[in-house]
């Protein structure tokens, strides 16, 4: 299992490589502009790692998670998986990799067909991918349920009879059945009760350890990300603004936005109650020139208005997108990243 302190060894081939992916939603009318939900994002995902995509609503984290599963077609860029560019693949090619790339939804109740029993819902992917049939199916369903801490009896129930926490565990069981290589968990614990959240988080960690499946964990809750993830990518306005091992992000955040997010976890009063000048959810779209964060940034300099900071840093694994993270009007640019 990878730790939160060290970085992925450079000689391990990434499981998935996301290269300059952009996703633009067309303008709805002539006065709106196109909205860039994902703006030139590049990221490698190593086998067996847990990477957190952290940000507020509108940051693009959920869209990115769904795009790398092929649920949204990217406007540009490449998503390499097992030698295939998923962004350019047709439906047939995508289907071949369906087994490997799976999703756990935010709301467990609506991720199950309300008319079918839990057992049938779990059995469906098993049958589709011909993993087992007939009698063996029932046994496998029970085994999967037990593996996530539920009993085989639950197979007979309907989704609305189970609680959120139980259903989320069933969702994990359903996905486990086809042994995926990468699971995107989209705010998978946000809607759960506090006492149940711990159960599901522990389960996710255990599964990652047991079968070495990569997890892309989308969340707005930094504490949860800290518990679960090896690496964290902080997203703002469709771009990754900081990337690095978990502990490094927490102990030494470089980007002003990351620092602000960490500050918000402090106790009240935080002293700044007034509305922010621009937040991802309310603003119209990505600004083309300059840094997206400049209107809220305490260390803004004139360069921020004209140039867009790239994601660069002391090493390939520890990067941030800011010209002036430390507030000095310094001329030192951060060390350039080692070319990938």
């Amino acid at each position: 299992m990878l730790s939160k302190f060290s970085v992925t060894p450079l000689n391990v081939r990434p499981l998935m490589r996301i290269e300059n992916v952009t996703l633009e939603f067309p303008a709805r009318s002539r006065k709106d502009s196109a909205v860039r939900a994902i703006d030139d994002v590049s990221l490698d995902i190593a086998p067996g790692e847990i990477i957190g995509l952290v940000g507020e609503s509108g940051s693009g984290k959920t869209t990115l998670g769904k795009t790398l599963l092929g649920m949204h077609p990217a406007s540009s860029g490449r998503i390499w998986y097992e030698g295939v560019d998923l962004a350019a693949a047709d439906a047939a090619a995508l289907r071949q990799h369906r087994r490997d790339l799976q999703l756990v939804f935010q709301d467990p109740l609506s991720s199950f067909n309300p008319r079918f029993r839990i057992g049938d819902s779990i059995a469906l992917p098993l049958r589709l991918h011909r993993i087992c049939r007939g009698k063996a199916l029932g046994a496998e369903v029970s085994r999967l349920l037990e593996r996530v801490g539920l009993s085989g009896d639950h197979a007979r129930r309907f989704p609305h009879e189970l609680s959120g926490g139980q259903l989320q565990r069933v969702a994990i069981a359903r996905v486990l059945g086809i042994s995926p290589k990468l699971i995107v968990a989209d705010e998978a614990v946000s809607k759960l009760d506090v006492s149940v959240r711990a159960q599901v988080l522990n389960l996710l960690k255990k599964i990652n350890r047991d079968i070495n499946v990569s997890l892309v964990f989308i969340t707005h809750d930094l504490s949860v990300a800290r518990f679960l993830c090896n690496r964290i990518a902080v997203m703002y306005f469709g771009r990754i603004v900081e990337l690095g091992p978990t502990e490094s992000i927490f102990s030494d955040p470089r980007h002003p936005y990351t620092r602000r997010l960490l500050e918000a976890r402090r106790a009240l009063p935080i002293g700044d109650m007034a509305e922010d000048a621009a937040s991802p959810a309310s603003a119209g779209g990505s600004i083309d020139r300059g840094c997206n964060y400049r209107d809220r940034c305490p260390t803004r300099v004139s360069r921020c208005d004209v140039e867009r900071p790239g994601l660069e840093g002391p090493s390939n694994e520890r990067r941030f997108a800011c010209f002036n993270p430390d507030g000095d009007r310094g001329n030192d640019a951060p060390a350039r990243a080692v070319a990938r």
Partner: protein
Amino acid sequence: MKGLLANRSACLGGAITLIVIIAVVVGPWLSIYSPADMDFFALLSPPNWQHPFGTDSFGRDVLTRVLYGARVSILVSAAGVFLAAVLGTAAGMLSAHFGGWVETVVMRAADLLLSFPSFVLALFLMVVLGFSIASVTVAIMLVYLPIFARLSRNMATLVKDEPWVQAARLFGQPVYSILGREILANIGTPILVQAATGVAFGIVIEAGLSFLGLGVQPPNPSLGSIMADGREYFSRAPWVLTMTGLAISIALLGLNLLSDGMRDLMDPKLRSRI
């Protein structure tokens, strides 16, 4: 099923419909008369023990004719509505799935059919197709096709973006399977409700067409033609028209109560989930 029995409308409606169906299936078989038997000694006789509904101008037993006629009406209506349901639901689901020009074409076609009042449309179709039982069936089918298409397309559109459908796609479930299993299972009930109402009104359409002489041709009995007959002799023998009309009303009542009951069940099922 359990819920269905608890609902009073559904129970009552279901019971009436069941009685009507049994009567229509078994009755003609049990009747000692055939619909064409003429008894010249009992022309236009009022209801009595031998002829519970009386006789018509040819001395034919009205009850027997009503039962045979009802059989035809119900079969024609049910067949037409069934075809409309199958074809219309398929069209609706496919247009919800594909969207784009498929959806536009199907929905505009549906709008076109719906812009005619149903009876006028049926009349027009009879003129085009000729007068026969088959063409009545086709007419009823065409009247209901757009209704099912619209209903299923609206419901499928609501359902197709639900997370569990997305999950099915992620698991690699083929499109037709998603439509057939997942989505259909969830939109089935409103379609059944619509079908029940449809059969009820279909009976009215058929009766209306036959009343005008456009549908089932004499001497084959049809509810509408019996009523047409009965209308001519209404002052002398009101029972023919009245009894036939009553029979139609009872059948309609049963079907409508049944569909009301089914529809009521759909709402509370969602409400009590809180």
